[in-house]
């Protein structure tokens, strides 16, 4: 059970990293268009030629 004293703080560090990435993504305008991004994958699927 003593391992909890190590594991829980490690888990906490991961949470902090996740939150930092989330904030970075929001600030990078990735959440600007909530109507569109969910459907984007449906369109990229069809793509055969990559734009150069």
């Amino acid at each position, binding site marked *: *059970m003593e391992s*909890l*004293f190590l594991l*829980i703080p490690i888990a*906490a560090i991961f*949470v902090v990293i*996740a*939150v930092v990435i*989330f*904030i970075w993504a*929001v*600030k990078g305008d990735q*959440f*600007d*268009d*909530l*109507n*569109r991004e969910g*459907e*984007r994958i*449906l*369109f990229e699927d*069809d793509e055969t030629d990559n*734009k150069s």
Partner: protein
Amino acid sequence: MSRVCFHCGDPIPAGLDIASELQNEHREFCCFGCQAIAEHICGADLSFYYQRRDNAKGTRLTEDNSSVFDLLLDKDLYNQYVHQGTDGHTIQLSLSGITCSACAWLIEKHLSKQAGILSVHVNLSSAIATITWDPDSISIQQIAKELLYIGYSSQPYLPGEQDALQSKEKKRAIIRLGIAGVGMMQVMMSAIAMYAGDMQGMDDIYRQLLRGISFIFATPVVLYAGLPFYRGALRDLKNRHFTMDLPVSLGILLAYASSVMALYTETGHVYFDSVTMFIFFLLMGRFLETVARSYHLGGQQQASLAAIRVLRDDQLQTIPLQQLIVGDTAIIEPGQTFPVDGILLSDFTSVDESSLTGEYSPVSKKQGANIHAQTVNIDQQAHLQVTEVGQNTKAAAISRITERALSEKPKVAIIADKVAHYFVIAVLITASLTYGFWSWMGEDEAYWIMVSVLVVTCPCALSLATPVALTTVTNALKRAGFLITRGHVIEALATTQHIVFDKTGTLTYGSFSITQVELYDFNYSKEQVLGMISGLEQHSKHPIAKTFQQFAPAKIMNIENLASQGVSGEYQGERFYFGNLALLESIGLPLISSINSSKAQLDLYLATKKQIFAKVTLCDALRPEAQSVIASLREQGIRVSLLTGDTRESAQSILDPEWFDDFETRCLPDQKWNWIKAQSGKNTLMIGDGLNDVPALAGATTSLAMGASSDLAKLHADAILLSEHLSTIPTALKAAKNCHKIIKQNLIWAAGYNATLLPLAIAGMIPPWVAAIGMALSSLIVVVNATRLNKL
């Protein structure tokens, strides 16, 4: 089976044959414009657009405004609108006609295939494209042209301070929601371990570790994510008007403070789990509400660059609209909207003033007549001497009346706030009485008992009761085509006592339709007559012409426009005239006395110089569902009134005054507002569409604009009827009443729950984990109850 256009989905006039072989399929179109767009899209190998779009309706290009991009040839303007970085030039374009993800995809794909385009990003929510290109290989004018080829017109756009502020606010809300969500999950995990520990025993040292961890994760949630609630509470205290923000903040902060105390003294119970969950749910509700309301209303058009042609020093110039000054001579093409007030310099034209007056029949204007901004030029190129620009125009004056009306708008008492008001007072009195009683009894723990009372009454379910129900019903109504853009609408609709309708464009379609065709000569059939008229009118911008577009045009040569009279053209070698009585008079035909010429309908004649062939009667048609909707509203005991700018005869010709409780005609915009204001004390719903309705819309308790309304009307309305179907109104009223009922049930349940637990908490009889689970359960019940509103 009626045929529809492959691109835009409009019906194809009978007998018209425009078709192409696209991707080995035979496709038919309603016009050459749509055909060109579809061929371009398929030719560029982007036909996937047609499989993926939400509804089978593409945009029909209405106006070629590419001249606005010629303005960017000017160095100063170019520098203003185009960001010139080392890796290419960047511009933002506001797009019209973009409706779904497929449009965004099409634009991005098509543009990025062009040589010299470095990146394209289309934001669907705001309808703004951000484009970066290499100025050496492509110009902005070419880019705009490429957009036109696939059917989208665009305008250069410069985001203002307002946009920056809004986007910052939205980003903060998302970050708050994210932090609250992640924090809640972490704290919950520790909490479940602690509940288990409470039941089967746990070493104090592990309990303290879990408490510490929950403290660490709960702190940013409470101190950062919860900030909007504390701000609201402070505002409440200043205004001495309590809303739900106050008990919410009080609950959060007290529970948090006592938990920190408990952690520090290693006694009592921590409530970090309840606090974080509470904050997350409330933020979620608020966020969903704003998302449901964020709808592209076209307000950005004003911030976009627009071009206007002027005659300066005998030279034709294209200048930005903002640089237009009083005294300029502006040139407005048929079909364009006058951007400013002025005096007509050309001989004549007719003007559609429906946006100002609600009167849909075009008004003839002679030289020297006053022309108002926001009206639409119809049949002739107009030269206009500018007399007023910007804030001084008549249209801007209406906006100012609107602002005044908004500030005097009656407030709806929001039920949750009313409850909150008493709730706060009751909780504070109970808590202090408890504290007083236990201190008087000489109890050392008096303070802790008071804290437990406050925590138990934590108004979690109570404050969730309203937002959850409102969010659900807002989304359900949005699916039905009733878009709510302000917060108080549902509460107000539930208690609406009085509904006021505008006539033109609201109860009627606001456009001409053919009510009668009378043949005077049987050489031509009805179909032939309508075909000839369609041919005569095919190049006209007059609203009448649109009515005949549904018929296949006959071949007409040498078409001539006869201002404010009609049109003429040659059919099989003979000259035909189509127009009003004045036209018949001018070609020397004996006048027929028109018997039933009321003002609301328009009699038009097809004739040669020798004889009259047919009389076509046009009228603004009533929406078919109007009468039954009005009747069903009145059955529910709602007072129904009509306010129109039209004359009494005109209104009576299609509406029966018997249908209404009040029948007010000849109302000017501010008279409409004053009439609404005079109904004070009643909960009024105003339904309208035009610029002339805007002050009344703003002044009514709630307002609803039709989906095809002017931008300003939509901007100031509390809700928008996207379905354009009047029967959605009774549906919305019913949904609002249901919502009201659910909110009441939820409030009764939540208050009952608190009232039962309160005495037990005062007596110290509830184990903390039971309190915590009970709190979660009571919230869950409230949420589940609200989901019943999903069905309308």
